[in-house]
């Protein structure tokens, strides 16, 4: 049994499906990346796991955290688990902090709710946590209001409150997207360091392949509210089987190795349909070069090597990418990712 088991998770907005049959798992202290373009259902997946979906959306399926079904649990029980066993880091640290509350109090709040800490204890622990996320003068930071901090500092504060109770799972929804490029690497590194230290698993949600591949052990590729491919990071990057994953890798690689600078940047044809406008059958078929009649039927997640799985009627052959450049390119993303993580240590 994994720490987090998402099985057949479906989320509907009214009658429109937003997520369909999403299944993946996160092991104890494992780092899993959830990747996809905007509108693929990444954030909805995160909110569904925490039971924070807006009232207009309904979820079906099961989300088990440490064996307990969160979707079936009462709101009271879910509130007990949120912040304590599963924590969330939001994309925009500026809006995720109450502008009128001192930073130390916001960090300590989690401990007051779940650990029954007194005001004084919570403050002391908040200061300690702020020190852990790298503030040189945590006492002063604890007394500051959010607007007195920079974006990177605010995200550190959010990270501090996320790991305050040593949750078994941290869900980070685009934690570095709103930050300066120079700060992104630091925050990402800190996030990885913190989850390692507190023994938490990490579900990292991002559209940025480099961010996810440098941090996560396994990847889940989401598109149109469906899982198209999942497996170990190296396998997925080196040997993508789904044309969508391969396309994503090609675009990312062209940027990272500079080959795209000498011509047109490769791009995925078309754009992500809006929710509810995805084609029947394979959700990617209207943008896929390989699509034919077979794709009118819904492909199931097929097993490849090991736990590498993909949902495609016409998968790329293993060990061989469709276009030579993509093959090279995906290698260089992996190398680039390794390089990046090496530099950051």
């Amino acid at each position, binding site marked *: 049994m994994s720490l987090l088991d998402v099985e057949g998770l479906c989320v509907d907005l009214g009658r429109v499906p937003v997520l369909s049959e999403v299944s993946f798992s996160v092991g104890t202290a494992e780092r899993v990346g959830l990747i996809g373009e905007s509108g693929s259902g990444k954030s909805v997946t995160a909110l569904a796991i*925490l039971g*924070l979906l807006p*009232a207009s959306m309904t979820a079906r399926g099961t989300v088990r955290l440490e064996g307990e079904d969160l979707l079936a649990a009462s709101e009271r029980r879910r*509130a*007990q*688990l*949120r*912040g*304590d066993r599963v*924590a*969330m880091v*939001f994309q*925009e640290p500026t*809006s*995720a*902090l*109450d*502008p*009128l*509350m001192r930073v130390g109090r916001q960090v300590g*709040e*989690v401990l007051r*709710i*779940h650990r029954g800490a007194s005001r004084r204890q919570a403050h002391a622990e908040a200061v300690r946590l702020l020190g852990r996320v790298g503030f040189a003068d945590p006492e002063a930071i604890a007394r500051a*209001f959010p*607007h007195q901090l920079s974006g990177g500092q605010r995200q550190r504060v*959010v990270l501090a*409150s*996320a790991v305050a109770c040593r949750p078994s799972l941290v869900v980070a929804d685009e934690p570095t997207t709103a930050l300066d490029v120079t700060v992104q690497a630091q925050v990402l590194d800190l996030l990885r360091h913190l989850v390692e230290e507190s023994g938490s698993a990490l579900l990292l949600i991002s559209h940025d392949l480099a961010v996810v591949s440098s941090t996560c052990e396994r990847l889940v590729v989401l598109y149109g509210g469906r899982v198209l491919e999942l497996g170990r990071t190296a396998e997925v990057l080196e040997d993508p089987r789904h044309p969508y994953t391969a396309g994503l890798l090609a675009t990312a690689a062209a940027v990272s190795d500079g080959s795209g600078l000498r011509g047109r940047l490769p791009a995925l044809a078309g754009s992500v349909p809006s929710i509810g406008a995805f084609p029947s059958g394979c959700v990617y078929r209207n943008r896929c070069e390989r699509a034919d009649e077979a794709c009118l039927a819904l492909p199931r997640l097929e097993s490849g090597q090991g736990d590498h799985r993909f949902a495609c009627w016409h998968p790329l052959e293993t060990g061989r990418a469709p276009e030579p450049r993509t093959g090279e390119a995906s290698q260089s993303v992996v190398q680039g990712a390794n390089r990046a993580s090496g530099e950051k240590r």
Partner: protein
Amino acid sequence: MTLPLGLRERARTGVEVAPELGASALGDMGLARRFLSCPAALIGGAITGLLVLVALVSLVWTPFDPNAIPQNVHLLAGPSGSHLLGTDALGRDVLSRLMAGSRVSLYAGVVAVVVASVVGVPAGLAAASLGGSASEAIMRLGDILFAFPALLGATTLTAALGASTTTAMLAIGIASVPYFARVARSGALAVLSSEYVLAARAYGQSRPAIVRRHVLPNIAPLLVVQTTLLFSVAILAEAALSYLGLGTPPPSASWGQMLESAQATLQTDPLLALWPALAIALAVLGFNLLGDGLSDVLDPRLRPVA
């Protein structure tokens, strides 16, 4: 009596003001500076400050007893050295009565504001956080109250409970409940949809705690403005009701009542009506300016970018 436009408008436009609340204002260091650089807030603050000061002084000292009817004095005397603003038809010192009247006016404002906010704010917050049919029920109830004429309510309540400042202001306070409920609800809806509330829920905060710790402080600026404006409404309403004999009963000095008794001698002593009229106008102007000024000072949209 109709409520001043400012208040009505604000109750209606609360929805548009609120979404900008994200970065709110009370915790800001530049607040005092913005207040000082806003003429409306400054002048309004000065007038209301003076009013409060006069009311406080009148508690311990007035030139003469404002209510006792003195023996052997000049009735309807013009301004003189000992009676700076003259005396009224019963020989009482007008200045003393004006000073004592400020106390009644402020008291009227306080009662109205307390009643309106103690009922209206929780109702609005409940409507915002409960949503659905509970919200509908609360707000429709407010609409019914809205449609009921405030003065008629005051008359009815006075008939039932007897004329007093408190009774009159109870009625004005009740009539103003929907304003506070609407402003609180629209502000709370904006805050509740913010990401920091989602973040608070994500770390396990309960709904009531979110409303208490996050929503209330963030809509405080809106409520402060509303409070100031209701003060001017209450002062005007108290004067109107006292003028009609439905508010503060004699012999306690009240500006409305002074105006009423001055009416009898308006032909011969117009000054006697001028003083309370000026006081009422000034107080209402002061609170309105302060309210408008504060809404500018506390409005994050108008804040210079740091």
